[in-house]
């Protein structure tokens, strides 16, 4: 990796240098691959019309064009020795994920285009995870889960995390919950691979050093039948985060800081690569939080290079062999941001945009009506441990309804202490006990919940125009249900602190 200069301006936590790639990343090219590939299965061959003279096959030695992690992953997946940002390539997909909201539509297109009797390209590579509208009496929502079940039975899909008994999620041993966390926990995220999902937060998996991004039903229907996708190679923005993580900051603060810096379209069509000593010190769950919100900056995918932390997390979760890749030392990045994490403070995103950044301490006069802790962004085990830490430090009770929605069954079990997890410094108490003592609502069944509103009877849905501090990922108008609702996005620390005061609060009031 390129050496990191210590030249950040002393007064600013943020330093921004443009390093324009020698090859302009915005070249317009025809959809083409500049080298033919072996035919596969008899009906697949490369697209013709090379944009330039084809590369000689012998050019696979040590003298290769330096590439970023994302470029390398896409090169390998499209069987290219190298490629450049702006090129459109057909890649082999390692995992395709879909859920109850987009799955039925994807299946419809798959059958429409490939035939009623068509089979998915690989029944072990399609992972189907109902998670969005599960615990509801909405008939169409329930029907959509049935559609998934019928398809999985017909196709003999290996990984279908089914739920039938909606009254008790624990009666469903296969059910997991929020798709992005389930993918990670069940070992479907592996370094160097290509993961596509019918959900914008699929970028969450970039935490594993893989290429992961969201696609729509039509693209997914195509992948389902072919195992391939046409992708445009994105240039990479590199974020170098250094410095010791202050005890009152979490990865959510880091990504909100970044989105506030570059705006909701600052990374459109680009990859966001997170490196530096701070990133290396983050756990897998924190890395997921970082990559999860890449989409909120318009990013195509996020990447954290795989390391010992990654490999340790994956131990026992997957038996599929994987091979990580890393950005070359001379790889070209479209921009470089250097961040001194030790200078950052807790932040929120004010209504109604994830880039509407403000310091938490500057919003202390904002009275709130509720707090929501959940979702793929902020409903993981460590997110609940973080919230519990604040409640424990305070010893007080919440002043507003505080909703807790664990992302998956595993997280729920962790919160309930059934896996032996206790809150550090509490003398052996479980998260649940701490939450009960603080007066939070009982943790709900794991699912996406009210992060995106959903059917009217969704638990914790914002049905009135209220003010909510939330550990979720979006605060556009109407996001959690009511068009006039006001959502402040925050870390679990900040959310818990806000619950205790009844106003947007800075967690340093309790933690330091």
């Amino acid at each position, binding site marked *: 990796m390129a050496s990191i200069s210590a030249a950040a301006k002393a007064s600013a936590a943020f330093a921004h240098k443009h390093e324009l790639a020698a090859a302009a990343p915005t070249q*317009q090219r*025809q*959809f083409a691959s500049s080298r033919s590939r072996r035919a596969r299965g008899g*009906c*697949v*061959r490369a*697209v*013709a019309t090379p944009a330039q003279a084809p590369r000689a096959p012998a050019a696979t030695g040590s003298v290769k064009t330096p590439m970023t992690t994302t470029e390398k992953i896409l090169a390998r997946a499209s069987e290219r020795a190298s490629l450049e940002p702006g090129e*459109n390539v*057909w890649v082999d997909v390692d995992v395709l994920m879909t859920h109850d*909201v*987009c799955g*039925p*539509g994807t*299946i*419809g297109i798959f059958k*429409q*285009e*490939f*035939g009623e009797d068509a089979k998915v390209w690989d029944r072990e590579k399609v992972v189907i995870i109902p998670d*969005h*509208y599960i615990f509801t009496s*909405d008939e*169409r*929502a329930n029907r*959509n889960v049935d*559609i998934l079940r019928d398809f999985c039975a017909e196709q003999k899909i290996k990984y279908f995390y089914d739920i039938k008994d909606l009254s008790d999620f624990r009666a469903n041993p296969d059910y997991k919950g929020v798709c992005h966390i389930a993918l990670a926990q069940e070992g479907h995220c592996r370094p160097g691979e290509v993961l596509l999902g*019918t*959900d*914008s937060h*699929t970028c969450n998996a970039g935490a594993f050093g893989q290429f992961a991004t*969201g*696609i*729509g*039903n*039509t*693209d997914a229907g*195509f992948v389902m039948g*072919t195992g*391939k996708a*046409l992708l*445009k190679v994105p240039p990479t923005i590199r974020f170098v985060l250094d410095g010791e993580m202050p005890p009152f900051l979490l990865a959510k603060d880091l990504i909100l800081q970044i989105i506030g810096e570059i705006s*909701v*379209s600052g990374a*459109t069509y680009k990859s966001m690569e997170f490196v530096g000593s701070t990133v290396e010190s983050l756990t897998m769950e924190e890395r997921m939080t970082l990559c999860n919100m890449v*989409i909120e900056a*318009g990013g*195509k995918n996020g990447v954290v290079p795989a390391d010992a932390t990654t490999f340790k997390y994956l131990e026992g979760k997957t038996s599929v062999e994987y091979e990580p890749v890393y950005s070359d030392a001379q790889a070209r990045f479209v921009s470089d941001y250097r961040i001194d994490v030790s200078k950052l403070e807790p932040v929120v995103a004010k209504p109604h945009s994830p880039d509407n950044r403000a310091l938490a301490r500057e919003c202390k006069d904002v009275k709130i009506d509720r707090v929501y802790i959940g979702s793929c962004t902020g409903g993981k085990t460590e997110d609940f441990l973080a919230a519990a830490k604040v409640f424990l430090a305070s010893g007080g009770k919440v002043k507003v309804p505080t909703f807790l929605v664990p992302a998956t069954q595993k997280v729920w079990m962790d919160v309930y202490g059934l896996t032996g997890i206790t809150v550090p410094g509490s003398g052996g108490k479980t998260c649940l006990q701490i939450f009960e003592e603080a007066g939070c609502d009982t943790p709900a069944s794991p699912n996406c919940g009210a992060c*995106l*509103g*959903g*059917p*009217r009877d969704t638990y914790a849905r914002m049905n009135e125009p209220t003010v909510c501090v939330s550990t979720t990922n*979006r605060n*556009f*108008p*109407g996001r959690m*249900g009511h*068009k*006039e609702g006001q959502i402040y996005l925050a870390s679990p620390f900040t959310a818990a602190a806000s619950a205790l005061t009844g106003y947007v609060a800075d967690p340093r009031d309790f933690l330091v």
Partner: protein
Amino acid sequence: MASPPKPVAAICNLTEEAAGPNLPLHSPPPPHGLATMTAAPLLSLTDAATVAAAVAPSRAPTRARTQATPRFPAAVSLRCRRARPLTAAAATGASPSSAAFHGECYVVGDNIDTDQIIPAEHLTLVPSKPDEYRKLGSFAFVGLPTAAYPVPFVVPGEESSRYAVIIGGANFGCGSSREHAPVALGAAGARAVVAEGYARIFFRNSVATGEVYPLELADSGASKECKTGDVVTVDLDSSVLINHTSGKQYKLKPIGDAGPVIEAGGIFAYARKTGMIASKSA
């Protein structure tokens, strides 16, 4: 490889009589596409008033296909879809660059996210089911805050919109990847979005589905200067958005890499055309 694809004349501009043998007559009418818009002649500014009068009251549900002779040759199908099997690449005659979209415009601002285009509570509707597809159209843009957008895109109770062209600002379609977003707009009758810029997934979904033609403005300003209800023409040939009501014109950017996919008729058609997947048997 299967036998060479049979050109299907203007898939989206078919009358029942013209339907080819692979297209069952009883199936739901195809979603309108590029071609239906070409039936509206490209007007000079002096005809604007006539058009305004003609377009507004007679704006029937967009599924009604015009019987008028198209001014331009049948253009490429922008939609590859809904309950009808795609049989072949639809290209025949002129490329989409000869086409135009015409009608009243609906203007929105920057960063219109997909929750505002189609709120999550409506995502139980499955776009590949024709009746639910239509229902999605009735909810298009229902998430827009009423204070900022007092004029609804779709009149409550109706299934389609009077507005053929959507004019947007920066980062149109940001947020969730829900394909229901371009689908809802297309189902409601919008033919094109003309915006300063797009979020990636929305743009990609628009191209893959062919539901709305996503065009990019060369400069900012249109979303602030145009008003909902203005009569506009999007002329792909000249790459320009003409606002007949205000008299102003706005340059458009060329479609770029998405062009070949749109011209083929969507990602499946493109893949078949380029040999990535086998031709579909009827």
